[in-house]
């Protein structure tokens, strides 16, 4: 038995290393090839930073990035506010059944939804643009946010609420001082998730964006359509590095906050 334990002690880190290699090799290879001077194919030709130059001088990329960020931030905040309001105000007995309905947002194929939505917008003569994009991404976000926030809400001990009421807090004060802080991790997590989903979405964006609104995935897809686009590799590397930096900053702030408490 001893031998088996030690065998698993070696095997497990090995498997973990392999999986991380699996996760990272493609990304790293792509990063390397973003410096490849060969615009076609995957043979290495020589080192260049030309693609980064092209990337930073392209106004289209930055417009698309700006649109994507605006839409992602807006839909994340709207979805989280609505989801929180729903979870806090619906009766538990209704909510425990109702929240299943929001899984539909994830399960319905996006293309079906997209075509349906396009018809809807047309029917009400709503012109496509950044608002329709936000509306649709918010819908998608609700599918992630409501189950997540609800799960956290359910796991909050009801005694905290009772204790607060008992200590003289009205319902509103209880929500503000007790429920809300306890929900915070779930709110942050789901806001991040909705942000990513929105930032990542292609199909719904393509159909529900108006003529003057192009998001980053739309741009990426149009670049990938034609051929290998080293500029996309460069863009991916830039995005990857910056998003990693944001997460790192975020989590280190979190850590410091926790550390400060002790």
């Amino acid at each position: 038995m001893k031998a088996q334990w030690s065998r698993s002690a070696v095997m497990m880190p090995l498997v973990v290393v392999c999986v991380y290699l699996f996760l990272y090799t493609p990304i790293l290879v792509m990063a390397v090839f973003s410096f490849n001077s060969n615009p076609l194919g995957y043979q290495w030709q020589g080192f260049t930073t030309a693609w980064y130059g092209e990337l930073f001088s392209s106004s289209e990329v930055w417009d698309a990035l700006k649109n994507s960020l605006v839409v992602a931030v807006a839909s994340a905040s709207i979805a989280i506010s609505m989801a929180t309001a729903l979870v806090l105000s619906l009766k538990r007995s209704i909510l425990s059944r109702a929240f299943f309905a929001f899984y539909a947002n994830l399960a319905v194929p996006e293309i079906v939804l997209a075509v349906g939505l396009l018809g809807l917008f047309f029917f009400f003569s709503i012109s496509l643009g950044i608002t329709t994009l936000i509306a649709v991404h918010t819908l998608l976000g609700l599918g992630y946010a409501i189950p997540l926030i609800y799960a956290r809400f359910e796991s909050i001990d009801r005694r905290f609420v009772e204790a607060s009421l008992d200590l003289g807090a009205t319902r509103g004060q209880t929500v503000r001082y007790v429920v809300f802080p306890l929900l915070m991790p779930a709110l942050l997590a789901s806001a991040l998730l909705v942000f990513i989903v929105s930032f990542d979405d292609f199909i719904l964006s393509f159909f529900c964006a108006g003529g003057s609104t192009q998001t980053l995935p739309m741009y990426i897809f149009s670049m990938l359509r034609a051929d290998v686009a080293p500029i996309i590799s460069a863009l991916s590397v830039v995005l990857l590095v910056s998003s990693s930096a944001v997460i790192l900053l975020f989590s280190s702030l979190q850590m410091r906050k926790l550390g400060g408490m002790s």
Partner: protein
Amino acid sequence: MRSIRLEGVSKSFHGEEILENLSLTIPSGKFFALLGPSGSGKTTILRLIAGLEQADQGRIFLGDQDITLLPPYERRINTVFQHYALFPHMNVFDNVAYGLKLHGLPAAQIKQKVLRILEVVHLGRHVNKPIQQLSGGQQQRVALARAIVNEPDVILLDEPLAALDLKLRERMLVELIDLQDEFQTTFVYVTHDQSEALTVADQMAIMNYDGEIEQIGTPKQIYEFPTSSFVAHFVGTTNIFEGILRFGDNQARIEIEGLGFFEVAIPQEKKWLCNGCVLLMGLRPEKIEISKNVMEGFANHLEGNVESIVYHGRSTQYNVRVENGLLIQVFEQNEEHFPREEIDYEDTVHLYWQKENVTLLER
């Protein structure tokens, strides 16, 4: 510091009746214990008083004020919850200051009050600790401080010591009594542990499984003079015999099948006693003298075989099988002022008790 009065309160959950037409008065400024087995509805009473549940029927008064429909935050009543329910996202100070902040007190005053109360509960050194870093006893004290600092009329304690170990529990009990003495607030203490209730209470109520109150009185009244077999059983340990009461000339005796006649004292207030009534006789184990030798001066006597011995430290419990097959428990203090006779398994022993030490209970 006001009294609480429940009048004809009923409460049911999902069609199951927990309390039915219950009336109870909790005197003001007293340490009142509500003792009952789990599931007897004592926590429900507490929650009704706190306003966390709403009564189906009946009224609840705080002093003269009808608080039946008042939401919890408008009642000057605070609760110490069973598992404390301390807010995990706040530190000790913020937890205690929570109620004061809600009432909009100036910060300086809040700080002064909180620090003082934390000093009282011996947490002066842990003011800024996160809740998670406190031990069970410390959390308990924070919960107490959080309730007391608001200077409510009533403090409700819902099995507050259940999660603590024995030593800590004993110490906390003493501290609770001291706190109550100092603040003179009405304490309502809910527990299923009779020794806790007997220790802390000025007055106590015993509840049975059906959510009814069996008896109200001081701990001594309850312990020494239980009015029902439920109370006798639930509070402390009791040997119960069933027998027939026989009035003789100037004395009363009880006839127990297979054991013979035993003298009993007839208290004046028990009007229901009658000649030939079938009733129960309760006898506390510590009221029985046990010896291998024959002794004089006792009204009653029995003989039996020691079947088992349980050593408790300060006392020893003997389980003695008597003639009709009944097993009788006897406690003997291990005083050891003088060398004592050794009683061992299988020894034949004599049991003696005085007639004043039995309680007569309705069957």
